């Protein structure tokens, strides 16, 4: 379970985030919805611990996983290594099983550059779930995909979440996506942005 209590976040003199407080229970999926540029990604980066310059506090659980807008893979390591390297101690067989689950089991030895964008995103998903994370963070994971691929990814993500049940926090600007995946929707609005 994660507890977020941010009192403010500024870039220079511009305050982007106001007071934002909420909790996500274990196994719960929460969507953060809001217009682009409102500070959704900033909020996620704070919760993920990437951005430490903010006022307030975030209590997050042990293991975290993240899916960015871009796949953000290691292009110089094979698909399988991309999973085992980010989860030290994970047996190759488990990583392979994860690849099978997202439908790219036969691509284990290929470099990310040899995969299509859709397959790269599947790999990013496989990497996220392979570590059995307590908290999964997704930053617009289905943006800039064609409708068919977006739909496949969406249902794949739905299944994986149902199976692994991490606390999930994801950002989107698509209402339909949010309603489909999330059990609760938070709206981020205004400047500085606050929850409504």
């Amino acid at each position, binding site marked *: 379970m994660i507890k977020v209590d941010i009192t403010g976040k500024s870039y220079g003199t511009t305050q982007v985030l106001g007071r934002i407080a909420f909790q996500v229970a274990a196994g719960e999926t929460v969507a953060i919805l809001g217009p682009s540029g409102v500070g959704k990604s900033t909020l996620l*980066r704070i919760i993920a611990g990437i951005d430490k310059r903010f006022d307030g506090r975030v209590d997050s659980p042990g293991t*975290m996983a993240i899916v960015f807008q871009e796949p953000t893979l*290691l292009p*110089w*390591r094979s698909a399988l290594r991309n999973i085992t390297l980010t989860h030290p101690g994970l047996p190759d067989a488990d990583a392979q099983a994860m690849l099978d689950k997202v439908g790219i089991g036969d691509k284990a030895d290929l470099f990310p550059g040899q995969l299509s964008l859709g397959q790269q995103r599947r790999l990013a998903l496989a990497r996220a779930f392979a570590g059995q994370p307590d908290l999964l963070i997704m930053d617009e994971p289905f943006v800039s995909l064609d409708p068919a691929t977006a739909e496949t990814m969406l249902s794949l993500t739905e299944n994986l979440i149902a199976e692994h049940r991490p606390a999930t926090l994801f950002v989107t600007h698509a209402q339909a996506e949010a309603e489909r995946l999330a059990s609760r929707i938070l709206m981020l609005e205004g400047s500085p942005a606050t929850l409504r």
Partner: protein
Amino acid sequence: MPGRIGVAASSVTGLLILWIIAATLTADPQILPQPFALVGPFWAELQSGELLFHLGHTLLRVIWAFGLAMTLGLALGLAMGRSEGLNRWLDPWLVIFLNLPALVLIVLCYLWIGLTETAAIVAVTLNKVPNVTTVIREGARALSPDLDAMAQVYRMPPLARFRHVVLPQLAPFLAAAARSGVAVIWKIVLVVEFLGRSNGIGFQIHLYFQLFDVGMVLVYAFSFIAVMLAVEWLILQPWERRSRRWRSA
């Protein structure tokens, strides 16, 4: 590939022909001997073990200085590329050391440390560290912040992060630093040996310079060039190809 080797071979042959013509025109083996006139002295040096003895000493110094310069340069370059504050402090030093003539550093090291092996290797290392640092710093500035964030969220252990996230991104910069490094280092090693060592290629060249034996100077110089070409072709280039494999795949 055969095309490239063919071109390289013809190009070297061209240089050889140029040498033969120049030697014929000079018509004085004291000043420029014919290339084939060097084969005898080369063989004699090889047989007596002299050549290998000095080659070995020089090579050992090159390896030491290269290893030290690359390690220090990598650490400094990474630190300076990642921390703007540190960079502001250390950059003036870097500029000073970059512009300090190799000869001055060598002489100072010999004066301060003494005519020892340590002084020789320190002098060569100090000459090369600033270059490596400059190149690696560029690489460190170009490191992907996204991959950094990814590694951080997944809590990759520091060593794995360095090896699998940072180093592959630095590989082209490391390769550039290594290749220009080897070339510069062995030249400086020769100067160091020339000035204050009693073995090595540089020492032998000093000896034959005093005897005005152009032939032997060329024999020693070419032997070491051959060794460095072998290093380039057998170690550096294959390593670079291997580390670039993912790009062409």
